[in-house]
């Protein structure tokens, strides 16, 4: 079973709705045993970084250990940002440190938040984008962005006057800065691709 981590922040329901719509069984839970038994984990997030990290509490290290042991993990929006080392949103906060890099403010000189549908160039070796072609629009809503320094991570970018990391893949760790659960058909395809990764592991 795929487990969406429930840690009492923002819009976690929509991610579950999208998997339900795809006919993919999913459970919203903060129960450590269920998380450990899951075929794969989704870390959603509509919240400020610090609030999200605090709300996640000790589950953070559980998720990190499971990801390091090979369980597929998908971070979405702030969940994506939490995969990195640290963020400077409302103070400095440590992330899970699964992917090297910091979360920093979107550079000034443009409208912030980066809000709306932006075109992502989809590398053909990133599993999340299988079947989607070379580029697609996805829905973004964020004021901070990842500065990816991890040389072992694959990165997909969007153009917001600079190359903004839209998605990463590092082994079994996946993340999207955009909201696949709010990105129409192409977003559902991304989640479907992740569900396939989860199924590939059995359980």
């Amino acid at each position, binding site marked *: 079973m795929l487990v969406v981590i429930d840690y009492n922040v*923002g819009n976690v329901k929509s991610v579950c709705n999208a998997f339900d719509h795809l006919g993919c069984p999913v459970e919203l839970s903060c129960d450590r045993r269920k998380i450990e038994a899951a075929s794969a984990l989704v870390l959603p997030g509509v*919240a*400020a970084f610090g609030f999200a990290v605090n709300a996640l509490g000790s589950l953070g290290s559980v998720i990190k250990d499971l990801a390091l042991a090979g369980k597929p993990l998908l971070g979405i929006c702030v969940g994506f940002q939490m995969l990195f080392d640290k963020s400077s949103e409302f103070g400095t906060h440590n992330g899970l440190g699964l992917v090297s890099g910091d979360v920093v403010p979107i550079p000034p000189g443009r409208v912030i938040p980066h809000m709306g549908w932006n*075109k992502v160039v989809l590398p053909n070796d990133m599993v999340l984008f299988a079947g989607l072609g070379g580029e697609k*629009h996805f829905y973004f809503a964020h*004021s901070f962005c990842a500065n990816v320094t991890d040389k072992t991570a694959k990165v997909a970018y969007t153009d917001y006057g600079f190359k903004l990391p839209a998605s990463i893949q590092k082994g079994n760790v996946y993340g999207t800065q955009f909201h696949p659960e*709010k990105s129409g058909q192409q977003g559902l395809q991304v989640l479907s691709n992740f569900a396939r990764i989860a199924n590939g592991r059995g359980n």
Partner: protein
Amino acid sequence: MLTRRIIPCLDVKDGRVVKGVHFLNLRDAGDPVELGSRYSEDGADELVFLDITATIRSRKTIVDLVRKVAENVFIPFTVGGGISTVEQMDELLRSGAEKCSVNTAAVKKPDILTQAAQRFGNQCVVLAIDARRSKTKAGHWQVTVKAGTEATDIDAVEWAVEGAKRGAGEILLTSMDADGTQKGYDIELTRAVADAVNIPVIASGGAGTLEHLYDAVVKGHAEAVLMASITHFESYTITQMKEYLRDRGIAVNL
């Protein structure tokens, strides 16, 4: 490149969409889920649901509505109307809304913007401003509250700047003069606000033609355009709006 957004607005009363939605081939023109799906399939970038009753009783209804829409529509949507606490916002976001808009409550207690931004991130916090052209000061607009029924002496542009500073991540700017006229957005107002803040501004009130949408973006500097009548009456489909904008050189998600 970030695309400009087309956002249909749906007024809700007792859990039903009201205000002249005249779609053909709809089983039930008042069903928010069916209308939301319809707009999503037609290419809407986002939806806005406004609870126009906004009573204590209607709060429960709107949460149910958000839940049902979120189970079936996979594009972002904002909910507004009568939201006065961070707890109410939390419930709506947890039920599936992407953003919440506050209007009267923010004027009365501007702290709500900061509290919400620190908890949810400012991208969830929409400041709705209903502005009316000042009769005494040319080139100025007054903020009105309680669905436009009560004027304040707050300057709309100054309020937008302060709202953004306090934590709003977007401004939904409605011209009370243009609303319902279908004679075009108040371009002067839209540009004055959009140029004064660094967060996205959604132009609202007055859309009647495709050119109005273009003007709001190009002359008004709006990041997004909101409309009700011209989509509800099927004067134009969302796809037609996007094709028109694209052909005039504006990036859209098509």
